[in-house]
């Protein structure tokens, strides 16, 4: 592996973490959206709120992390991508603002009307943000971002079949992940009926995600032949691994082994993303800019590598502490 690949790999790990943790957060908002009226949906909403409260801010720093590593290590390609795709990116950022603020503020407001308004804003932006991120991935993966600042079509780069597929898949994956994670949380807190409800949701979302994924193969074949080739060629083992992990997760859910289901689901999602990465390798912007071409100077990459290594030594224990404290404390109360 070259230095550039190592640094890009670190950014990719950050992306996977964002998809898993941030994704589950967004998914929580999606279930909030579909929970039904104020009374009927209360149990689900409270569960979601309780599960993401202390961790949602940390979960979202992954995104910042990915962006800053890319703009330092792969400045030119980064500039090309964000300028061509600025519309969905700006909308996603607005979604993050609306979502974060609404989630944070709705606990502090008194009236039911305000709570509903914030609740709706929270839920709706949970849907839109992953959609636009998925569309961004679709735009890059289908080769619609040429090198050069704002050189691509600012509309067609994300309003296209692959982007729509990416957007829909992102939303589904978030919903699925959240449901799986929430099953475990609910059972741990002794809310067995809620756990059952999320189990149904997880199974449903998992099946739909799988179906859309399969149908998506046809879309990619027509719209993003290069990615299709990569996925069915070099990427095939990873894709198969993802399918296997996904099926395993469904079986585990069915048999109510929620902790194992979490792991299998996370692996399935990580494998889908890896499939995308392997599929478009060696390009950063298919089919014009390779990873090596995009990489900045050696000193910068080395500095990044040092920072990433030292940083993760600090970060990983902190993150583990947060999650452990949170899980344990919730246990202790029941």
């Amino acid at each position, binding site marked *: 592996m070259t230095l550039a690949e190592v640094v890009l790999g670190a950014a990719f790990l950050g992306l996977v973490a964002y998809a898993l943790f941030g994704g589950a957060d967004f998914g929580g908002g999606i279930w909030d959206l579909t929970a039904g009226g104020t009374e009927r949906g209360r149990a689900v909403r409270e569960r979601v*709120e*309780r599960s993401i*409260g*202390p*961790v*949602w*801010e*940390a979960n*979202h*720093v992954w995104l*910042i*992390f990915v*962006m*800053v*590593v890319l*703009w*330092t290590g792969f*400045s030119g390609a*980064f*500039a*090309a991508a*964000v*300028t061509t795709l*600025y*519309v969905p990116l*700006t909308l996603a*950022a*607005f979604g*993050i*603002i609306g979502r*974060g*603020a609404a*989630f*944070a*503020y709705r*606990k*502090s*407001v008194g009236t039911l009307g305000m709570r509903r308004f914030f609740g709706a804003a929270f839920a709706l932006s949970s849907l839109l943000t992953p959609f636009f991120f998925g569309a961004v991935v679709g735009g890059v993966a289908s080769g619609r971002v040429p090198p*050069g*600042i*704002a050189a691509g079509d*600012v509309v067609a780069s994300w309003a296209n079949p692959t982007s729509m597929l990416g957007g829909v898949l992102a939303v589904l994956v978030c919903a699925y992940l959240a449901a799986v994670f929430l099953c475990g949380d609910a059972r741990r807190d002794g809310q067995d009926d809620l756990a059952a409800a999320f189990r149904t949701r997880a199974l449903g979302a998992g099946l739909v995600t799988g179906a859309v994924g399969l149908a998506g193969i046809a879309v990619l074949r027509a719209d993003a032949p290069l990615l299709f080739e990569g996925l069915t060629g070099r990427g095939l083992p990873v894709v198969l691994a993802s399918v296997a992990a996904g099926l395993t997760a469904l079986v585990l859910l069915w048999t109510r082994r929620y902790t194992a289901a979490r792991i299998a689901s996370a692996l399935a999602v990580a494998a889908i993303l890896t499939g995308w990465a392997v599929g478009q390798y060696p390009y950063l912007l298919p089919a014009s800019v390779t990873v090596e071409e995009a990489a*900045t*100077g050696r*000193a*910068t990459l080395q*500095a990044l590598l040092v*920072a*990433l290594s030292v*940083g993760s030594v*600090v*970060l990983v224990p*902190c*993150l583990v*502490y*947060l999650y452990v*404290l949170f899980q344990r*404390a919730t246990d*202790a*109360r029941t």
Partner: protein
Amino acid sequence: MWEVVDSGNLLFARNQMALSLGWHIVFACFGIAFPAIVVFTEWLGHRRGDPVLSGLARTWAKAMGVLFAAGAVSGTLLSFEMGILWPGLMDRFGEVFGFPFVLEGFAFFVEAIFVGVYLFGWNRLSPRAHMLSALPMVVAGVAGAFFVVSANAWMNNPVGFSLDADGNVVDARPWAAMFSPSTWPQFTHMWLAAFMVTGFLVASVYAVGMLRGRRDRHHRLGLLIPLAVAAIATPVQIGVGDWIANTVADNQPAKLAAMEGQYETTAGAGLSIGGIYVDDELRYALEIPYGLSLLVHHDPDGVVPGLEEFPADQRPPVNVVHLAYNAMVLIGTALLGLAGWFGLVWWRRRRLPRTDWFLRAVAVSGVGAVVAMEAGWITTEVGRQPWIVYGLMRTEDAVSPAAGLAWGLVAVVAVYAVLTVFTVIVLRRLARGRETLAPQEQEGVR
């Protein structure tokens, strides 16, 4: 390569950036200074077994949670905007000055984690463990500020790379780029500003309460602690102001000339306060003889270069910079007066000044500190124009030419207007002491 013609996006992009940054920075100040103040109060309350102090710490911690959320979401938009609005800057110089943003990412990660731990763990951790969990927050807030400000200092004073004959970056040295001559003065100044903004603002909330007749111990202490913090920071800040002004004089003479509205290069230059700059001349200004030369060179006859030294297309807009600079210095001086009054009475009598005028002054000091801080940033940023990277890259060459970019400004104005209204509503509820929860806390556990 970046071939950007002026696409008409420049004005919109600048305003969008300025609005987003100007909004974010207020919350960032709380992220830097508030954890230290809150945990200090918690510690004091714990040590003295004083429920009033502990109660204050509890309330402030909730406010900190809300403010942190606002800072985090607005910061997220900023990191998108750096690329979306200024791709020319990223493309050409990202490898040189992007690095501190990566370190900043780690700092904020740690801060976000421990904000969660601190608020969530209020009744779950032992007091000692709980107070310890605030320390990473304190450190990360300061480190985060250092890294971002060092990126800004680099834009003012680019170092740590070489350019080839075509102006392409070769031999980028990201570690060196973090330590430009502007880094330490700018960081120190910003760090102190954060304590002033946080201290005066929190104190002003309690001053208003006291003016309305709520003069219990809760309000007195709520005013005293943050005001003491701000009052200690203020005199130091003025000293650092002199340091930073000297750094600007050495490295960015055009900015200094604009700050002072000085057209002609003069020996023994006077310090001009107020006035309007028209036709290369500052009119109606109050002038303190030799003031500027004294300030900049600590010598009454020192030579201060004026704007005439620079081609017309390399001069920043003078009026904005001059007035913003004056506003900062004026407010800073007024706050120094307030801090002195408070300090003197406290030193002599161990109590707050008794007159309502003191409370009124504290009540406006918070807004004053924010205005001073915003004015400082306007001085820095507008004073650097027309350069985005001083002397090397013009702002118009960095802006994105993407079609429709201007709509971004409209949308950002709308989003921030709504966000501001709700942030104010939520904070007012908190200030009134209603039972509320911070975003990182959980329902049902108090």
